[in-house]
């Protein structure tokens, strides 16, 4: 079993710390997505795991063995690069065979021309050839084996890069934004294929992406990274439904979550100068924020907490998104509605929005999640 532990990894470039003590335990066979905006340090972390860069502090443990000081070639990891990094002068078959040749053949056996006459070389070459064919058939690229990378399309190159990674049996696969150079349609298709490949191989995948949709759809756990830290690492639905941090809530989900300013006074939660709920076991504080996913909102009558004017709407066929300008809020509120509500969402129409306080996510001043006990919804409202 090849579990992988990341233990307090710090990386500094001069004065700036790009990784501020990352710890993560990855069990064998997991598909972990490292997701975050560009510059959050996710690629650096992957390269440190790979051994292409060294950490300033902390440790990486693969299969119970610390790999500090072990170079990339000896860590038994495979990597798929963003640019695919295929050797342009080698055929597809040779590209896929490189990791096997490098590891299992001696320097003399690999010599051009003379190498193949060395003892054992012919047999080794046959084995390698068989393994290359096996990997190629897994990815359905047998017909391309004789071509050069220059003659392939982007999607085909991507498959060859995958083939080169899976031709041997590594402790883990590292994938660095492997889909970012593909067009949108191909990206969706390949997404599914990689997820399926993961299920079939049962191997550990560590997948770096800035695209939260890729992370949500493929991984068993998502590690959301920001400013050199992992904010939360959980299963996709948990990250979506139960975010620990306002930044996670804002990063995951499209359209973005609605954030409303609120205050807590004497246990009473006020939004836009209206008391909407009574909370206990939370200290009073002014600058708390209320997160509402677009699907948590529903259309209601004029006398609602949120009342505003429809400023823009997008009909996607199966659902409708409307942006509503609410007086007193700096940002528009986004609502997801059923297409049947289309008529009520005409541009300029005044609409009221309602929600269950149970669907709202509460965050304190510093952005950490608050988990209060809600005593009575709309208590103040009803009393008044």
């Amino acid at each position, binding site marked *: 079993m090849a579990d992988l532990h990341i233990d307090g990894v710090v990386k500094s470039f001069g004065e700036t710390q790009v990784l501020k003590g990352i710890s993560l335990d990855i069990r064998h066979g997991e598909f972990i997505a490292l997701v975050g905006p560009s510059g959050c340090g996710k690629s650096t972390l992957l390269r440190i795991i790979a051994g292409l860069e060294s950490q300033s502090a902390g440790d990486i443990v693969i299969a119970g063995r610390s790999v500090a000081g072990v170079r990339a*070639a000896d860590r038994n990891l495979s*990597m798929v690069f963003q640019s695919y990094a295929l050797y*342009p002068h*080698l055929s597809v078959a040779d590209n896929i065979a490189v*990791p096997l040749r490098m590891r299992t053949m001696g320097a003399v056996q690999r010599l051009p021309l003379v190498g193949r006459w060395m003892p054992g070389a012919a047999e080794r070459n046959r084995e390698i050839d068989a393994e290359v064919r096996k990997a190629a058939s897994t990815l359905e690229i047998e017909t391309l084996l004789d071509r050069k990378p220059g003659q392939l399309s982007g999607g085909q190159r991507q498959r060859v890069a995958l083939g080169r990674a899976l031709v041997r049996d590594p402790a883990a696969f590292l994938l660095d934004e492997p889909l970012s150079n593909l067009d949108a349609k191909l990206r969706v298709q390949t997404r599914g294929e990689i997820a399926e490949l993961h299920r079939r191989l049962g191997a550990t995948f560590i997948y770096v992406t800035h695209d939260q949709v890729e992370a949500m759809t493929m991984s068993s756990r998502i590690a959301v990274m920001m400013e050199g830290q992992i904010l939360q690492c959980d299963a996709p639905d948990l990250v979506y439904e139960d975010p620990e941090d306002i930044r996670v809530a804002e990063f995951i989900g499209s359209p973005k979550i609605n954030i409303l300013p609120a205050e807590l006074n004497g246990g009473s939660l006020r939004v836009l100068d209206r008391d909407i709920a009574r909370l206990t076991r939370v200290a009073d504080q002014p600058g708390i924020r209320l997160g509402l996913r677009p699907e948590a909102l529903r259309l209601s009558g004029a006398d609602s907490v949120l009342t505003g004017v429809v400023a823009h709407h997008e009909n996607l066929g199966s659902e409708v998104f409307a942006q509503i300008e609410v007086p007193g809020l700096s940002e528009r509120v986004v609502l997801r509605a059923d297409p049947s509500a289309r008529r009520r969402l005409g541009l300029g129409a005044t609409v009221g929005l309602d929600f269950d306080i149970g669907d709202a996510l509460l965050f304190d001043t510093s952005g950490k999640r608050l988990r209060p006990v809600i005593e009575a919804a709309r208590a103040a409202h009803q009393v008044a």
Partner: protein
Amino acid sequence: MAVTEIPVAAPAARSVEASQRRTGWFLTAPAITLMGLILLGPVLVALVLSFTDYALGNSGFNWVGLENYEKLFTRSTYEKMFVATFTYVVTVVPLSVGLGLGAALLITSVGRFRDLYKTIYFLPVMATLLAMAIAWEFMLHPTIGMVNRTIEMGCGTFLEAIWPFMAQGCEGGFPLWLGDQRYAIWVVCFVGIWQGFGFNMVLYLAGLTSVHRELYHAAEMDGARSAWERFRLVTWPALGPTTVFVVTISCIRAFQVFDTIEAFWPQGAGPNKSAYVMMFAIFEKGVQQNLIGIGSAITVVFLGFVMFLTLIQRWLVERKVHYG
């Protein structure tokens, strides 16, 4: 005129085409004329004259058939010429290309002073070769030259014991270099390498910057542990097109060596004609001795070599298909 013949259907299109044709020819005419007069004409002239005994000042000439070529391939002077030329080319090309590549690799791999090294190594490329040849002649002066003076400092040290050349030199004087038939052509080769490798280095540096960095990481992940393995797997193949070009241009330049030899030995091209290269032969026979027939024959053979090399280069370049 053409205008009247234009069908009514597309008058505008036709007239645009006609005017493009006219301007096209008009704009290229000077270049075509000059190419014909200055490049193609002389090639034909050389070809024709190589079958004659023409000399400047004579009113006519006789056809002598292949006599000039026969001389070229039988007489010992010309044997020396071919030997000297090929010795020079075969020495200078691999060494200046190898040193250029080596310097480029070293320079990209060190962190500091890159630009300084690059500037210094490129200086000889910019300098007037004739002036630098004269400077080298002084450096190699048997008694007051810097080279022998520097070597002399090794006399009386351990070097004398481990290096026979040193022991001999301290005993009976150091080489005359330019005056010594054994050394003459090698000195010329040395100056050629000294002058040319910086040019190759710069081309290789340009080639190296275009190698994708992720390829090195991929090679590392694929198990290429040593620098040599990464060079074999990534760098050398990526520099293929650069190498083809660098080798060809070094060859063509090496074939044209003249300045150094004229500067060192204005009269005889080295002791016992040991550095009698083709360009010097063309100059001496054709211009100084007015033996135009034989000079033209050397010119034709020379052109043959150069064109052959360039055609090989083009063929190699077109064979390669890489993606960027």
